[in-house]
């Protein structure tokens, strides 16, 4: 399980939001390659092979990380910083998928090296469209960084 290839790492504390996202991803046959962690600390542990995920190979990087901001323990910005300042992980594309439309947050994320910033729409159609677009863009169109 530790060394299963993961295409998408979803970092989301809201279980309902997570369920919706995963459901949409399923529609695009990505559920198998999607891994969900529930807070910032778990995310960091997973990415860096620490704690509960001790032994996971760091170099087996996910293709995409979907990162929420408002989370307990470590918030999304702190996780982002951790990812983007480590040589081994900074090339992983990170999309901030969050409710916050706050300019300071947006600015900070881009400063830290977030690849994209998307505000979760309330409207469901818009939400599914966003997920779809995400999938198409980051997993199909975009050239991933060299492994």
């Amino acid at each position, binding site marked *: 399980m530790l060394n299963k290839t993961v295409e998408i790492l979803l970092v989301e504390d*809201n279980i*309902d939001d997570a369920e919706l996202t995963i459901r949409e991803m399923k529609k695009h046959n990505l559920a198998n390659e999607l891994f969900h962690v529930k807070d910032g600390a778990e995310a960091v542990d997973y990415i860096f092979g620490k704690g509960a995920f001790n032994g996971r190979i760091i170099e087996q990087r996910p293709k995409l990380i979907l990162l929420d901001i408002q989370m307990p323990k470590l918030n999304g910005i702190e996780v982002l910083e951790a990812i983007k300042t480590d040589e081994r992980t900074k090339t992983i594309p990170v999309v901030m998928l969050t409710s916050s439309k706050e300019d300071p947050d947006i600015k900070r994320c881009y400063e830290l090296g977030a690849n994209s910033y998307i505000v979760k*729409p*309330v*409207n*469901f159609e818009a939400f599914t469209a966003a997920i779809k677009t995400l999938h198409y863009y980051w997993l199909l169109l975009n050239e991933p960084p060299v492994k």
Partner: protein
Amino acid sequence: MTNSINRLMIFALLLLTIAVSAVTAISIWQSQRIKSFNTEITRFEENRYLMQQLIMAVLDNETGARGYVITGQKSFLEPMIVSERKLDELRIILLKRTATPELATLLDDSLSPIINLRKEFSWQMVALVDNGRLEEAKKLVSSGLGKHYTDEARKFAAKIDTIRTNLLNTKRKANETFIQDLNRFLILILIIILIISIFNFRQLAKIYKKQKAIELHLRQSEQLYAALFYKSPIAKWIVNPRSNIIVDVNDSFCELFDLKRENVTGKTNAEVGLNSSPEVRDEVLKQIMEKGFARNVEYKVPLPNGTIKWVSMSIDPIKLDGDDCFVGASADITIRKEKEQEIAKMNAELEQKVNEKTAELRKNEQQLKTLNDSLERMVEHRTAQLSAANKEMEAFSYSVSHDLRAPLRGIIGFTNIIQEDFGDTMQEEEKRLFGIIKKNTEKMGNLIDDLLDFSRLGRKEISKLTVDSETMVQEVVEEIGRVNTRTDAIEWIIQPLPPVNADISTIRQVWVNLISNAIKYSKQAPKPVIEIGSYRENGHIVFFVKDNGVGFDEQYKNKLFNVFQRLHSENEFEGTGIGLALVKKIVSRHDGKVWATGEIDKGAAFYFSIP
């Protein structure tokens, strides 16, 4: 100029002296020459006389001899012997007196021999007579030889005389020419002397005139200075510093110090009662030593009659008849001093008053300041309170909206899941009810989004730049057009729009809201026309968006811009009612105004102004 004239005069005098000396010398020389010439003449005459004597002696000799022959008387022999003696004497004398060699030769070689012959002839005759040879003697006489000898002697004598006379004449002529030349020369010198004398006399006359003029000038100067001294309106005096005696004073002095001149001149300051204090004397001395004169030394003079005067004294050194004296001038400044004292007193009084008033003022100032300070602190406090309250409010509304969104997302999402997963097994009514739930939730979501936007705007800083309105409007229209396909049917009249100084993103929001409103509310119009333009008014730029859509009832126009306030139902036109409130808020932050006009079914026009 005088120097060269003096030198000229001296030179002239020198010449004069030389000339006069020359004239004198020449005159003396001339008289010498004349004297010597006269001697020559005398000499000549003597020689001639001697010559004549000689010839007479010859004649006597002849006569004597003849007479003896004729008469035979011995008495005739005597003159003959006498003459012989005379002839010898004369011959010697004449020879001695003859300087000219030519004459001497004649005398010696010609005359003397003839005379000897004559003498011998005479003795021959005598001898004959003595020897009784009278007839032979008479024959000798008649032969004429004796006469011949006499005649020859005469001839030679005459020749000698002529030569002598010629010599004398030559000498005389030479003398005369000499004297003539001399005289001419003398006349020349005399003329020169005359000229020089005239020149000298003229110079002397000039000098004399000048001297007189200088004396006159001097006298006039003296009179002028005397007048200045005596008639000066300022008290003046002259003192001899060595003896301290007052030499002279002028009328003003007497007036100022109430003294008579005769009581003052010849006395010292002390005697007159006008001594000044040691400080004043020291000051005067100091100035004189530094500059050579003293200026404006002010001091008090108690007069002998009891009054006190203030004077301003100045002292200068002068020379009077060779003595070093001081001339002093004292101006009466009593009145000025009195006035100065008065002014000083008034000034002091004024200053005191001013100080009192200033102290009062300062006290008042302090009070004011304290009041001000406490006011300010109060204001600060209130502002801080308000600010904090505001922040709290905003943070509150933000977090509320934010935190409300997540569950909403959940409700909508899962409602959809139900619809998707179980839609096939649901009844129409069930579907309809779920539809209502979803619709309402979505509405709530929109409300929350709008509220979020509205609140965020309150917290955001606006930064003003020059915004190209025209480009922005074009972009907005295009963008809305991409989303809303209905825009193709609309006729757009977009006038040229001026640039404004505004915050880019918020002004954009204004345009977006107004234009999307215009589109939304025109959707029922058969030929929707939307006009966008601007004009200037009172220093503001006013933009407008006009449509020919459904319009609104003007009596409610004040409610238009309220939050969540609508003039139409949700069924007619969707929307939360926050769009215009947002526009108003943004425009207010730009210090502008919004307003609208409308007519039901004719259309509406929305205006906003930006300074």
